[in-house]
């Protein structure tokens, strides 16, 4: 297992470097957008004095490099800073308001939990469904079942997310009120109630991610079905189902795991549209809101969370594919 340990350490170090690069790119990009926090928050009321006052309070009048370095120093100490919006209110009253919403970390935490809950619910539905469909499609390939599965999943992945969302709302909320169209998630909800409120966005996302995972499963298995050892298994007289599940699937796991990891990362980072349609208070909406008002500390923190999700999920996928493959597990 030494090899895996080495890969783990190596990839984690690379991951940290990636995060560092991402933070620079985001910082520069947000700064290149026209307008800044002061102008965005004041809107029509942006008189030069008011803009100056806010810039001075938030330190936006300092050069960009200096601002980045002070942000970086904070992050290295585990302090993601205070969102500009909150800092701005603080400067209104002249002191800590003690609202408990002070730091970016506290602001992001509940939103991130909601996002993870949505991603988790979706994954719990989508992964088993797409694996099953993939295996069945491989088993009955080129039959009517295969065609229907392919057409259905490809149609759903090709439609825009909001369109799928509205279709689901029409059938499951308006015509047959099974689930609410509004994901009014807040603290103090029981798990089942929360699950019920999350169901429609989760189903929408399931439709979006299923095709990719299902088709990869199908392709990876079909690819193996031509190999000699599968032929051997067939000649032994094993049932087609057993051939696929016991003999083909374990060898097809590596690409499937990779696709699942990619889709999970997508579920954490790319679901803004679905969040807006269902008014789901996830991290995506917070991110978009923050970009809109150029709230750099929040934007940076969200980006780090997104990048870290990609890095960690990819790392997990690689480790799992190594573990699933004895040849990689015991290199000569």
């Amino acid at each position, binding site marked *: 297992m030494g090899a895996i340990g080495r890969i783990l350490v190596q990839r984690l170090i690379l991951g940290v470097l990636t995060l560092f690069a991402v933070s620079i790119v985001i910082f520069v990009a947000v700064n290149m957008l026209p307008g800044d926090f002061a102008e965005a928050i004041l809107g029509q*009321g942006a008189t030069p004095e008011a803009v100056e006052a806010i810039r001075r309070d938030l330190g936006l009048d300092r050069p960009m490099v200096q601002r980045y370095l002070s942000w970086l120093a904070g992050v290295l100490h585990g302090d993601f800073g205070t969102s500009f919006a909150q800092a701005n209110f603080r400067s*209104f009253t002249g002191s800590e308001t003690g609202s408990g919403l002070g730091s970016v970390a506290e602001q992001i935490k509940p939103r991130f939990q909601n996002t993870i809950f949505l991603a988790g619910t979706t994954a719990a539905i989508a992964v088993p469904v797409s694996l099953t469909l993939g295996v069945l499609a491989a088993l009955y390939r080129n039959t009517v079942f295969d065609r229907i599965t392919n057409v259905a999943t490809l149609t759903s992945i090709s439609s825009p997310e909001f369109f799928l969302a509205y279709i689901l*709302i029409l059938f499951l909320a*308006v015509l047959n009120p099974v689930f609410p169209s509004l994901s009014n998630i807040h603290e103090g909800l029981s798990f089942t109630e929360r699950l019920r409120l999350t169901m429609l966005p989760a189903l929408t996302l399931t439709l979006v991610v299923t095709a990719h995972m299902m088709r990869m499963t199908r392709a990876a298995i079909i690819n193996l079905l031509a190999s000699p050892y599968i032929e051997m298994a067939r000649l032994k007289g094993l049932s087609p189902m057993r051939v696929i599940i016991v003999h083909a699937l374990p060898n097809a796991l590596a690409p499937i795991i990779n696709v699942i990891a990619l889709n999970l990362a997508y579920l954490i980072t790319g679901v803004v549209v679905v969040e807006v349609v269902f008014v789901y208070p996830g991290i995506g909406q917070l991110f978009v*809101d923050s970009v809109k008002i150029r709230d750099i500390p929040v934007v940076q923190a969200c980006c780090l969370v997104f990048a870290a999700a990609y890095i960690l999920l990819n790392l997990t996928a690689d480790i799992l594919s190594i573990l699933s493959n004895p040849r990689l597990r015991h290199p000569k």
Partner: protein
Amino acid sequence: MTNFTRRGLMQTSAALGLLAATGMPALAAPKRGGRFVAGLSGANTSDSWDGRTHSDLFMIASAQGAVFDSLTEVAADGSLKGELAESWEASADARVWTFNLRKGVKFHNGKDFGADDVIESLKMHVAEGAKSAAKPIVSNIEEMKKVTDHQVQFTLKGGNADFPYLMSDYHILIYPAGQIEEAIAKGIGTGLYRVVSFDPGVRFVGKRVDDHYKGDQAGFFDEIEYIAINDATARTNALLTGQVHAINRIDFKTEALLKANPMVEIQEVTGNQHYTFPMLTNVEPFNDVNVRKALKHAVNRQEMVDKVLLGHGRVSYDNPIGPANQFFDEDLPPIEYDPDKSKYYLKQAGLSSLSVDLSASDAAFTGAVDAALLYQSSAKACGIDINVVQEPADGYWSNVWLKKPWCACYWSGRATEDWMFSTAYEDGVPWNDTHWHNDRFQELLKMGRVELDQNRRREIYVEMQRIISAEGGTIIPMYANYVQAKSVKIGTPEKIGNLWQMDNARMAERWWMA
């Protein structure tokens, strides 16, 4: 209704029409109870209980509409009534105002309300470094004196007959003295509902205060919940699936579908919100009043109301004073679309044709670019070539408005004539987006401000509206209606406020479970 005005008639006849259509008894008495859920736009993750920062419906409805009170309140019919102030009187020159405060009022944390709270809450707006939108109002107060525990005397720098009206501004909320920071953090006011939970940009839940000074006359719900839904389609869905009882700002495109639903009622009022095209009147060619007049006759106002607002509005003849204002001039001479007149004024300006840039972006108002293009095509017949420059929405208010010679803009209007004029049309104020100057207008503005006689004030403000309509630098083609929808399960008074969306954002106070 003894006080029968044209304005009042217009609003109520619309409401009566609605009621007649539903076959409901016109006057159902309000009753206590129930939980009111509304889906509202205009929420941000940067929201807080600091009234100085409020600018959009979600926080206005949550703060002034539920948790906090102001000194005065604009009633649904546009008249002024006391909220935390019981009565007020002015000196003859409208410079010294004495407010008698309500007795026996308590904040949600049990603190008694008194004169100190008023003085300290007002001082917030002029504190060192404060960026309050109400600063211009409060900085006109020279001295605030506590006469007794329940009487405050304000001495103004210059007389202002509208001062009690200004105290109804949604930025000027009354916080408990000495605990303002805590009150902002937790939302501690004197309003009808206390904060149960508040998640900025997501949700607000309030619970009716048991023993409130407004008694049984207002605040009929046991509990209210405002959910932030910035997306218009999601708001509509929430209403149609019965998850909320009311929504603001419906999408005009789906209005017909909402109307067809028997469980939903649409409310529509024309208020002071107006869409504008201000030009800098100290920049060529707009410095010539004849060019301005040529442009005024080159726009087809009715077409804009029909196509940009899809009929949900009313034609304006370049008048920033709207139907919700006290002294709105209903008989303002119309400015018709007339290519011949437009050409005539161009000739007066010594020009045979005119070519101008018009900067627009949908940041100014929804449909601003379309409105500019309509203007372009109607002006072509007048020999005026309007080049529509589409500006980025980002930074529009900083880089285009007040900077480009002619652009698109909007105003939500103000409760009083003086307030509107002195915000955007007085000589030298920062938001005078036309850099307009007219001696007679300035003179009238100063006269009207200190005049306490209502009839005299009407004459003054009518004359001002006529001057600005005929010669001003702002093209104001239309007033945009406030259109909102509610479930039939919610009862509302006959008259809905038109100063601001959702019954002046006070639906938690005025509506009930039918």
